[in-house]
């Protein structure tokens, strides 16, 4: 049953207001089709409804709509997206329509984009890893299947390059099916082209892109992560795939949320963002995870460009409270020309401790990571001391630390576009640690030192 109206009473982009018929049982959240007087069809969704007024958000925006002549038809269904395994390698817009010029997708099933919350008792604790091919990710902040690990970046930092590298190189090291979903939220046209080019370079059919450009409608930014994650849930939990979802950039999503909230006349909380932003973020991030008895998983890498590099800004702050750790990019590193500029000391992967080791990565991984961490943080203290008292007054051991730190930054952190499997990364890390005397390596078990320590390491061989 669909009922049409032509009685829009207010238009406040992207919302329209109208009075419903007294006995029309409008469904909350249902889809509406809007026909402009020129015959253009737009899609909208019921935001709130009461017997006096219905508020509809129009995906394409309400610009150009008219009071008397625009027709609004209420469909009796909520927002659904058609998903299929054939989406692999394709590109879509914010409501799941193909934008790569290819054939339309024949959906296997239509799904409500809001999903349902995963039952905490059926969740499985994440335990296996994803190899990103990036040393500072894999060794120090391992990405775990089912985890949500955001990248905290800033304007002018190369997070897009990093994201493209991750999308192209990430893999599960078992023979299980693996797919990456790239969800671009509010991308600049040029950024979108960059990503498209990067993905095509690898000829990857294992990437599904959902792209919302900065010039696309604001509402679509709010829908696109949900559409992407609904697709992810379909592939992960109905077709046993490991799905990595990259959401870039959540800051644009939050800005859109604020914009719409403002139009709705809601009471703002911090910095004008709505009070429900935490719950709203959670409805996206918490769709990562694993389910007991199911083979697939959803892992998320949301990218956040922190306004003014401020980690206490509501967007990174609320994100940090929901995600399991964070990868922080450093402006200092970037200025020194290091890529990727992942700053290890403030980055953290909360779930890595239970996921690494003999079975998933290598026996010495945990010790190695903790030793690198300890050595680098000590080296930084020594570097600070050096700037006060001068290199001459440092002890031999201290100088070893400085050499370690320099090479660690130049050759471990700074890996450029190359891909390093776990073994290669671990061996490199051992060469770095071997710059130091064995006695300095207190966080590593003795047997690992015996096995992996490189005697008289040649510092020119460390790269």
């Amino acid at each position: 049953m669909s009922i049409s109206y032509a009685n829009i009473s207010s238009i406040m982009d992207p919302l329209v207001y109208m009075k419903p018929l007294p006995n029309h049982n409008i469904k909350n959240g249902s889809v509406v089709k809007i026909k402009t007087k020129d015959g253009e069809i737009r899609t909208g969704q019921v935001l709130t409804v009461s017997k006096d007024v219905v508020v509809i958000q129009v995906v394409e925006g309400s610009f150009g709509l008219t009071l008397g002549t625009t027709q609004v038809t209420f469909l009796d269904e909520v927002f659904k997206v058609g998903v299929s395994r054939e989406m692999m390698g394709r590109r879509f817009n914010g409501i799941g329509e193909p934008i790569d010029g290819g054939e339309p997708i024949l959906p296997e099933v239509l799904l409500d984009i809001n999903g349902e919350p995963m039952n905490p008792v059926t969740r499985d604790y994440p335990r296996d890893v994803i190899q990103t091919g990036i040393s500072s990710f894999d060794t120090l902040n391992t990405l775990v299947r089912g985890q949500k690990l955001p990248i905290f970046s800033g304007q002018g930092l190369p997070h897009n390059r990093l994201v493209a590298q991750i999308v192209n190189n990430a893999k599960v090291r078992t023979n299980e099916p693996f797919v990456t979903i790239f969800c671009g939220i509010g991308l600049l046209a040029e950024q979108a082209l960059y990503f498209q080019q990067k993905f095509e370079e690898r000829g990857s059919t294992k990437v599904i892109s959902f792209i919302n450009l900065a010039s696309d409608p604001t509402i679509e930014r709010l829908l696109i992560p949900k559409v992407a994650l609904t697709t992810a849930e379909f592939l992960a939990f109905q077709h046993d795939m490991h799905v990595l979802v990259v959401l870039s950039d959540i800051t644009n999503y939050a800005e859109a949320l604020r914009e719409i909230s403002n139009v709705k006349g809601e009471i703002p909380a911090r910095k004008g963002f709505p009070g429900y932003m935490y719950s709203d973020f959670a409805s996206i991030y918490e769709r990562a995870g694993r389910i007991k008895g199911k083979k697939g998983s959803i892992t998320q890498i949301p990218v956040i460009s922190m306004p003014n590099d401020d980690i206490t800004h509501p967007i990174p702050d609320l994100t940090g409270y929901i995600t399991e750790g964070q990868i922080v990019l450093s402006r200092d590193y970037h200025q020194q020309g290091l890529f990727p500029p992942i700053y290890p000391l403030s980055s953290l992967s909360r779930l890595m401790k239970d996921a690494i080791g003999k079975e998933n990565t290598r026996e010495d991984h945990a010790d190695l990571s903790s030793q690198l961490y300890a050595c680098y943080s000590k080296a930084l203290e020594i570097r600070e001391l050096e700037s006060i008292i001068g290199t001459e007054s440092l002890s031999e051991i201290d100088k070893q630390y400085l050499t370690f730190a320099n090479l660690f930054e130049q050759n471990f952190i700074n890996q450029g576009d190359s891909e390093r499997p776990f073994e290669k990364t671990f061996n490199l890390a051992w060469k770095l640690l071997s710059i130091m005397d064995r006695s300095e390596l207190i966080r590593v078990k003795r047997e690992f030192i015996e096995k992996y320590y490189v005697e008289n390491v040649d510092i020119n061989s460390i790269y």
Partner: protein
Amino acid sequence: MKYKSSTHPVLGKIIAINGSVIKVEGFRDQSVGDMVNVSTKLNLIGEIIKIVNKIAVIQCYEDTSGLKLNATVENYRYPLSMELGPGMLTMIYDGIQRPLEKIAEISGDFIARGLRVPAIDRRKIWEFHPAVNPGDYVSEGDIVGTVQELSLTHNIMVPPGISGKIVSINSGDMRVEDFAYSIEKRDKTIEKFSLLTRWPIRKARPYKKRFIPSKPLITGARVFDLLFPVAQGGVVAVPGGFGTGKTVVQHSLAKFADADVIVYIGCGERGNEMADLLNSFPSLEDPKNHRPLMDRTIMIANTSNMPVSAREASIFAGITMAEYWRDMGKNVLLLADSTSRWAEALRELSGRLEEMPTEGGYPAYLATRLSNFYERAGFVQVLGKGNRFGSITIVGSVSPPGGDFSEPVTTNTKRFVKAFWALDARLAYARHYPAVNWTDSYSLYDNLEEYWEENIEKGWQDARKTVNSILSKADQLESVAKLIGTENLPPDQQLTLLMATVIKDGYLIQNSFNQNDMYSSPLKTMRLALLFLKFYHKCEKLIKIGVPIFRFKEMKCLNALRRARLDFHSNEVEKMTQLGNEMDDEFSNLEKQYRS
């Protein structure tokens, strides 16, 4: 059961839907707090939160998308209540006491809407042992019989407000809804009771008398037990930014704290964290009686993506269950992680109600609601015959945005709690766990000395004071030391700095992955503290005869002392005594060298 649902609900119809808030008109009889069935098709659970011009404003505990205007809403005229009775232990509930395991059986891996599953298993058989006879006079809170629930004796009590003469009483195997006993009340009417009762979540259960808590709640973490103790019946807030280890503190309390029953509320937190807890708990055992930890635990898991109004209800659901166990004379520990998420839920709902916001967008009644919750903690004499006592201790974590403790939830919480365990990002980054900041934290439970002195070991108060003063002095000295170098400080100040480092690494830090260190018994906590103080006092003495600081740093016993927390298990008291003796010997040798 006390609240009988009337068979004929009053009906109304939906006139507005805004997120989880809906408006209903047409109820001919209604009151605030009534639980309603929203839409006879979707069957969503809701609660009337206010009535404006005869229109009921309802908060719906499930997602309202797809809900229709004009849909029918049924009001059964009883308040949102918890089911209380045998069978709550080991259960995992959502924010409105729906058993998540049962829900998973029905709706699979994702939580569908409109499911009604009883909180307590109706089919399970319990053996009821009556404790009174027909003809006995009983009144509210009296124990009419018991049921053995796992390792605990579950008292079946006369519900509050009821008194009279036992007419008949059943015994032996029965299910929770079967007839258990009946009472002839003063007005000569006879009321029948089963093992199951109900209690509205917004109303505190009554007790006889309240006392000032004076017995410590042993947490098994040295930094709390010695420096910032909490009493049984006390209230603690644990604030900390993200990554400071709030949840780890809550988990370790759930594992090791000395309480009969633990109610753990995962309120708006991460699903994977809950999964970790749910996966690890069943395999863990209570360090005291080696029974599965799950046996004393009730969990509420309302993760951040579950409906926001159920998150608001979850802490009241938890405290109602805690009160029921308290009324049996048990010591209950309620862990709420995190109350900030609860406050945010309140803010979100308030926004939907278009209420005038105050600071940070929170509603003006934030403080009142917080106090409604925290004030339900306490050490009390419970209702019923005999001098029986029970307690509820609340440990609520607070997640201040940006780690800023001046925000409304933290500041308001501070008004209602007597202990404050401030977690510090700086310490967490340095991998100092539990990351409790010793300057910002406090505990006003300073009346626990008697218990420690009489039951554990002498010198608790003295040890606290000395450790505290070493830490605070060291904090002041550190800035000076940075400027002029530690070596240029006078020896006694150098000693303070040395002791502060040693106490931090060797005492305050606790490794939750190390078998010996994860739990520190009160005796280990005391003995270790005394060893550190012994070392300190001996050094103080030797400084006076000119022994330089580096000699202390080289001492064997100092190394042993620093590792003692890892090397000695809580029951290896003799090893600690031995370390004390070795310390004596080493110091007297050192003293001899310098005297001669």
